[in-house]
């Protein structure tokens, strides 16, 4: 057992480039000529990679792994794979216990989609209306004239904008809400397009 540990330690030092020239050559020859020894080397390689990912190597070993051991492309590939697996495992664990959080995500995404769809609705008429209403409150008939459409066409579009909370109606007068102004500003900033007459 002690011999195995010593051998593994020697291989580890070899993989981290910490052996003197003659020791290094000795290990290399054995790796090339002894299949069992080569298999042991592969196991030590896996251990170093696992310990590197989990951060259980000493500071010095961590440094040697980064600078020397991972200079070999195949080992970097292996490292990437292990990291991906670890991430997947931790995401899966989190997901198992996060049903309410996920419903929050679904619900937030749906709320945003409803809001944005109300702007796209009617070949982007919703966007045109909210941009007009940000300037000043208006009656439905005036809005219809401004965007060259009729009452029957504009009514469902306005209703959807009200439902999504970006505009409101008070005594026949339509106005842009704070939420509506904020969303419009966000879109303007992101797109570089300004909705001003």
């Amino acid at each position, binding site marked *: 057992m002690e011999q195995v540990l010593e051998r593994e330690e020697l291989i580890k030092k070899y993989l981290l480039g910490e052996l003197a020239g003659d020791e290094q050559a000795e290990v290399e020859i054995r790796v090339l000529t002894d299949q069992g020894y080569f298999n042991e080397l592969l196991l030590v390689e896996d251990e170093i990679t696992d310990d590197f990912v989990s951060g259980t190597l000493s500071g010095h070993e961590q440094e040697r792994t980064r600078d020397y051991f991972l200079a070999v492309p195949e080992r970097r*590939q292996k490292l990437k794979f292990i990291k991906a697996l670890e991430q997947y495992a931790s995401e899966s664990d989190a997901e198992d216990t996060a049903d309410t959080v996920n419903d929050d995500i679904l619900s*937030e995404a749906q709320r945003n*989609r409803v809001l944005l769809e109300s702007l*796209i609705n009617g070949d982007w008429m919703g966007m045109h209306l909210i941009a007009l209403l940000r300037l000043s409150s208006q009656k439905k008939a005036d809005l219809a004239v401004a965007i060259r459409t009729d009452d029957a066409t504009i009514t469902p579009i306005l209703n959807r904008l009200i439902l999504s909370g970006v505009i409101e109606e008070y005594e026949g007068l339509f106005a842009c809400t704070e939420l509506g102004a904020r969303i419009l500003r966000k879109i303007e900033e992101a797109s570089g397009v300004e909705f*001003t007459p």
Partner: protein
Amino acid sequence: MGFEEAINRLKRQIEAYDLNILVWGPGVDSGEHFEKRRKIKQEISNCFYNADIRFSEELDLTGILPGIDQLDFPAQELWHLSACDLCVVLDTAKGAGEEIAHFVGSQHAHKLLILTHERYESSTNFPTALRKRQNQLFYSDEEYFTCNLVKQVLTRIKTIALGKLSGMKV
């Protein structure tokens, strides 16, 4: 710049938006259903010319995620879902519900757009959360055979693009 020109500029940005879209659904041996899936892909590509639209079976992530091919199938599909902005699922095949169930608990479930025939509206194949949050839409025969179903998909994609442009979770 007038409103109309501003809106046209925004529309052009949305159509040019760089999106990753997956289209899941029946395979090539399923005849008309595969043809519909192919048509959905084609129509998306016509309207969003910078979008990368793939069937799930065409997607190969081994280049950026070495070893993904060693994971089981649901795990691979979860990676696919995490890599896309929208995943359109044409639900015509038996077992689709089971497949989707793997992803409902994930933080990427909001990217699903499942299209199911209205005759299955009362079925409990898919979790109700997806229906409630409009991640599952039901279509009639007429909508399936006309352009309406595709139209609904395109509207959803416009919304996704506008949301991503504005930094909103959609």
